[in-house]
């Protein structure tokens, strides 16, 4: 037997086996950690069940969904989340894109400045929530002082005032995530070839006309991706709210007290965790959120494809 056959003989496993050996653990893990919980929770969403209760799940059909979709309190959570997502994402787009336009031209120190601006994005939301809580504090926080309030008694109580609390969360979210939008916008802006602007200058387009007809459409795909990411994140907003307000403060709306910053995820968490531990109901609510996010994502992806194909 010639010697160059040896390496092949040394491997006892066939290609097919090898592929299986690599793929099967991943697939098993996926099924165990993702697919099974997904299907099991779908099942649970049609039952009355509490994870801390030894009684078996009891099939109740669409009752849980009926409750989530008809109860005003849940609608309130969806409304808060929707309003929060709309305001926060819009502001992030404006701030992030504006920053990108400013940083598009290279100047001395622009690299360091860009890195510095990106820092908020790299922090843990729990930490951000904790220190912004101090920043918003009316007696010693820097935020009110910067706005010109020197007397803690008249300074706005951002986290305690039901009219301001959602805005406070929005401000922190914008502070934290505008850099992400800036990063994507910068990537988009720097991908626009110079010759398009040269051609536009020859074609006698004003700066505004160039911005509207060249810059904006050329970065639009990346802007849409930024909107998509940020919207999905906004709909999942949990940690910042927990760190800042815990969902409060409460506001009397009609005869019901509602928590003005209680997003869907925060409500979901409360519903699913002890003491409430309503596993069935919270599963149903989670599925409603999932459907909404998939629907929104699809809308964005569709418009993204439309832009790409024309």
């Amino acid at each position, binding site marked *: 037997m010639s010697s160059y056959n040896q390496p092949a003989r040394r491997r006892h496993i066939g290609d097919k086996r090898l592929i299986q050996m690599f793929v099967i653990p991943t697939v098993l893990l996926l099924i165990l950690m993702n697919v099974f919980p997904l299907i099991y929770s779908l099942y649970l969403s049609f039952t009355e069940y509490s994870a801390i209760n030894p009684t078996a799940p009891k099939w109740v059909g669409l009752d849980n969904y009926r409750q989530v979709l008809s109860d005003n309190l849940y609608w309130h959570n969806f409304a808060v989340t929707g309003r929060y997502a709309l305001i926060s994402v819009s502001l992030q787009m404006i701030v992030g894109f504006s920053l990108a336009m400013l940083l598009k031209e290279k100047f001395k120190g622009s690299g360091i400045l860009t890195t510095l601006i990106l820092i908020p994005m790299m922090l843990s939301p729990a930490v951000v929530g904790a220190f912004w809580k101090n920043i918003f504090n009316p007696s010693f926080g820097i935020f009110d002082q910067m706005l010109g309030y020197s007397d803690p008694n008249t300074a706005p109580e951002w986290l305690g005032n039901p009219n301001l609390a959602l805005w406070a969360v929005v401000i922190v979210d914008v502070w934290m995530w505008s850099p992400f939008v800036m990063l994507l916008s910068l990537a988009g802006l720097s991908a626009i070839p110079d010759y398009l602007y*040269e051609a536009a200058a020859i074609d006698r*387009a004003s700066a505004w006309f160039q911005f509207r007809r060249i810059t904006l*459409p050329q970065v639009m795909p990346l802007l849409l991706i930024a909107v998509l990411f940020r919207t999905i994140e906004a709909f999942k907003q949990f940690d910042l709210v927990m760190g800042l307000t815990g969902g409060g403060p409460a506001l009397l709306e009609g005869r019901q007290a509602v928590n003005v910053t209680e997003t869907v995820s925060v409500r979901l968490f409360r519903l699913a965790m002890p003491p409430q531990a309503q596993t069935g109901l919270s599963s149903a609510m989670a599925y409603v959120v999932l459907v909404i996010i998939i629907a929104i994502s699809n809308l964005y992806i569709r418009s993204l494809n439309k832009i790409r194909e024309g």
Partner: protein
Amino acid sequence: MATIELVNVEKKFGASFAVKPMNMTIYNGEFVVLLGPSGCGKTTTLRMISGLEAVTDGQILFDGKEVTWLHPSDRDIAFVFQFFALYSHMTARENIAFPLQAQGESKENIRKRVEEVAKMLRIEHLLSARPGGLSGGDQQRVALARALVRRPAAFLMDEPLGALDAEFRESMRAEIKRLHIEQNATTVYVTHDQIEAMAMGDRVVVMSAAVVQQNGTPAEVYHDPANLFVAKFIGSPGMNLIRGHYADGKVALPGDSYYAVPTDWQAAIHEVIGRAGDVILGFRPEAAHISENGPIATTVYTSDLHGSYTMLHLELNRDTIVDVRAGRGTSYPIGTPARFDLDPAMVRFFDPKTEAAIHKGGNQ
């Protein structure tokens, strides 16, 4: 339409010149080709005329009016880029309409004008396509339409055919020439392709190493090159240039041949190099004809058939090979001796020290 004047225009990048101070006038309705190898400064010159590149010194005048520091949009010019520079997110129609929309023309007027130029360039059927879906030739047609639609005072074209396949290039060359004749618009056209330059230009400006080498009609730069660079660069192959020693009305050439200098040239040669000295004899391949009694003795190095004629490569000695055009009837086997003579009206002489052409009519 406009006359474009360049007065001592120069461009420096750091300490090195991209374009050394140059003077040039492009007359109203003229088609001027800036020709040269890459890096010679021809594109920089064009971009300075357009205003896309700032001059380091000098003045640019359009119709006698100074525009040196005007923004490109204030110069009333159109620019055709080598890689089309179409707006990729717009359809061909929107691309062509762009310059008119930027000026705030009425919708009706825009539609009319776009359709006019589309018809002129025969691209009506492509108007709703995006640049990405068009062939290179069609993209350049759209770019030309965008340039034409505003009826600018001058067209500046930066190697507009450089990015096209050979088959498109020839037909587009004819289209651009035809457009120029119909529009009679002042056109400055940059290319490195001397065949293109000769075919299209009313005037060819040959540039090399940031300097204008010659500014003349295609016939002038072909038949009367100003220096060795132009002689070699224009024509394919370029002019034959043989260095020899001149004395007593004869040039001693490599391979022990003597060429008797036509009498009308002798005075000019004396004026430049004196009674005796080195001189460079130049002649185009078609200026030579094979003849048994020809004064220049060679052997056939190789020959190649070009359809209607044969190009012979003849060896004077080991270091000197010349290209000579011959009829396709006779065959010239490698290694056979061949003698040729030169048409006295078509020989040229150059000074090897300055590399400049010697002029029959007197040299300054």
